[in-house]
């Protein structure tokens, strides 16, 4: 018998504890709200922020003269005509304030001659990207926000909470139903405002650069609650994810900062430079955009000129050992522990799923189309159009998190004027509670029967990598949709019943429920977009077409996806 749910009441519920969720919690508390922040993993440890080893774009104007308008121009140029103007503007205009606030909280941005220094990165017209040495940006941001939160008595938080569904009451999102993975206990959370800060969907892919818990939960929660998603077909692949030799203890995207600082040479399996064949000569500098680099590497591999493990070589052999040491300090020792000596050998790299441009529709206050529901960070769609400018991911997490927290606190105040305490009506959460309370009984199946959820996730990742990767065709996408539907049928309608603490298979059932729903929106949107633009490349429709300067809006109607076009507004510079 499953125990009665633990009932929690709060002003603002924040789902996710990466940079977006933590900043939202801080700002909501600053706005006078009591905050409850939950995470599927541990607080501030999962998600993408802690993994971000690269840089954060903000027009501080300290390293070189700069203004948000220049940052904005670069952002919309990278977005290939699909950036949502208000979100892109907010991202660029609020970035300096967020960076300076983190600086005041002691994040430790790298400094030069008393100012916060900045580096150039592909797609930026000047040095605009701040960082924490050595490749420690994400962990430092995460730790700083966690420390600020730890000192705030208005912010309560709990890790190991799997949110199953949002709950609507009287036309508003009024909280959520979930369960505590640590004990198996059902949980209901009544909230006057809810912030989704669950990040992206890179876990859908076999090789990815983020955490285990980036399975697109927020997209699935929003979709099932009736919200609209946009531009779900745009998955950014990071071209030079580490491939070989096996490297442990470092994130696979770790080569980018080396490229920023030292250039490096991208070579094919015959040790020839090859990017000029695809329209961009490297010339020893790091200027190659992500979509082009991904294309060039995949085409070389297809032509039989890949490196032994199916990628390209990245070489720093021309750099002096002392220069490598200066640029990367202790990282050189961590590489040595993996038997990698950059002065004597190249490494192998290949494209890896990195970020998702699409997501939940939200306005510049981070209000979604559902009253009471706000969104922040990567889960928001539209700011980055068809291709994200490097350095904008942590920026949007901070900026959108701050804005969402303020908006959620203001909304909670309005609700509080009408009601003292938010109650969740049993009828409105019946379906979600049924899922967390009344699963299959284990003794019908035996503890080890039932779907092998770990293997199913691996199969889904293979489908997405092989058929919904950077280069798509109608045939591959149709095949992927068939495979996703078959996995959904295999998963079934309900999980195994709760069976004590940390039932990972049961958690994976809920993960798969979300992942399969989100995979379907990506593949279906990609199938409908019969052109190539930014991160969405169709080999059967290789041209970027003016009539496709259009967002695709996705809603769930019954069990069907309804995808409608909405022409993108012309962007003012």
């Amino acid at each position, binding site marked *: 018998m499953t125990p009665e749910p633990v009932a929690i009441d709060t002003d603002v519920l924040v789902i996710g504890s990466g940079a977006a969720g933590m900043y939202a919690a801080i700002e909501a508390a600053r706005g006078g709200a009591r905050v409850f922040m939950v995470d599927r993993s541990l607080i501030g440890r999962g998600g993408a922020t802690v993994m971000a080893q690269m840089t954060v774009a903000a027009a501080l104007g300290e390293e070189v003269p700069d203004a948000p308008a220049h940052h904005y121009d670069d952002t919309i140029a990278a977005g290939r005509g699909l950036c949502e103007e208000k979100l892109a503007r907010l991202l660029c205009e609020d970035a300096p304030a967020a960076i300076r606030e983190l600086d005041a909280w002691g994040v430790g941005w790298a400094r030069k001659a008393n100012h916060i220094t900045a580096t150039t990165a592909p797609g930026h017209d000047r040095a605009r990207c701040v960082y924490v040495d050595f490749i420690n940006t994400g962990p430092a941001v995460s730790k700083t926000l966690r420390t600020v939160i730890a000192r705030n008595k208005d912010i309560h938080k709990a890790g190991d909470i799997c949110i199953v569904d949002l709950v609507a009451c009287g036309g508003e999102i009024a909280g959520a139903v979930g369960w505590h993975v640590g004990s198996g206990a059902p949980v209901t959370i009544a909230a006057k405002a809810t912030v989704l800060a669950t990040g992206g969907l890179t876990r859908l892919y076999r090789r990815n650069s983020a*955490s285990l818990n980036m399975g697109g939960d927020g997209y699935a929660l929003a979709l099932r609650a009736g919200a609209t998603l946009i531009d779900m077909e745009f998955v950014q692949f990071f071209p030079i994810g580490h491939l070989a030799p096996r490297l442990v203890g470092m994130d696979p995207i770790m080569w980018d900062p080396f490229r920023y600082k030292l250039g490096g040479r991208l070579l094919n399996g015959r040790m020839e430079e090859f990017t000029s064949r695809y329209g961009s000569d490297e010339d020893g500098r790091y200027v190659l955009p992500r979509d082009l680099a991904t294309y060039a590497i995949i085409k070389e591999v297809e032509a039989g000129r890949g490196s032994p493990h199916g990628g390209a070589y990245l070489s720093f052999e021309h750099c002096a050992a002392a220069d490598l040491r200066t640029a990367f300090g202790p990282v050189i020792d961590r590489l040595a522990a993996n038997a990698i000596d950059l002065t004597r050998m190249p490494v192998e790299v290949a494209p890896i799923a990195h970020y998702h441009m699409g997501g939940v529709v939200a306005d510049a206050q981070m209000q979604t189309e559902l009253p009471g529901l706000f969104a922040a960070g990567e889960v928001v769609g539209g700011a980055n159009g068809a291709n994200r400018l490097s350095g904008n991911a942590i920026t949007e997490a901070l900026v959108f998190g701050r804005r969402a927290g303020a908006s959620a606190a203001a909304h909670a105040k309005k609700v509080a004027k009408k009601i003292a305490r938010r109650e969740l009506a049993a009828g409105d959460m019946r379906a979600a509670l049924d899922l967390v309370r009344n699963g299959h009984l284990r003794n019908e199946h035996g503890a080890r029967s039932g779907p092998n959820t770990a293997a199913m996730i691996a199969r889904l990742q293979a489908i997405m990598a092989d058929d919904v990767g950077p280069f798509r065709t109608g045939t591959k996408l149709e095949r992927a949709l068939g495979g996703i539907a078959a996995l959904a049928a295999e998963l079934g309608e309900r999980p195994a019943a709760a069976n*004590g603490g*940390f039932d990972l298979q049961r958690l994976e059932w809920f993960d798969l429920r979300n992942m399969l729903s989100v995979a379907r929106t990506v593949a279906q949107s990609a199938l409908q977009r019969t052109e190539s633009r930014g991160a969405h490349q169709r080999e059967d429709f290789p041209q970027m077409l003016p009539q496709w300067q259009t967002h695709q809006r996705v809603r769930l109607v019954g069990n069907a996806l309804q995808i409608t076009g909405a022409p993108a507004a012309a962007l003012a510079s």
Partner: protein
Amino acid sequence: MSSVAKLKIKRGGAGESERWESFEVPFEPGQSVLDGLRWLRINKDPSLAMRYSCINANACKECMIQLDGETVYACTARLEPREMTLTPLPNKKLIRDLVTEIAPPAERFK
């Protein structure tokens, strides 16, 4: 050289009697213990409970377990072609199998 690693794992939930189970997983030089555990869950026994988030980066610090009595991160400890004994952290409250309560008290669900 043997091409398998034998993972001897202490299993059981809080309040249950412990049991030992051994699994053979394919070994390739350079792999981590976490690689072996992930292979095991996909191919042999998905019911094994373990905690990890960042997979490879040693960023999340969630995959702390004991290997042959020493506390390690499963993502950075190397898999070896021999018997390796894996146990949950002895000084933390056991939840299930290799998973213990490692979150600071203020970040736990109460």
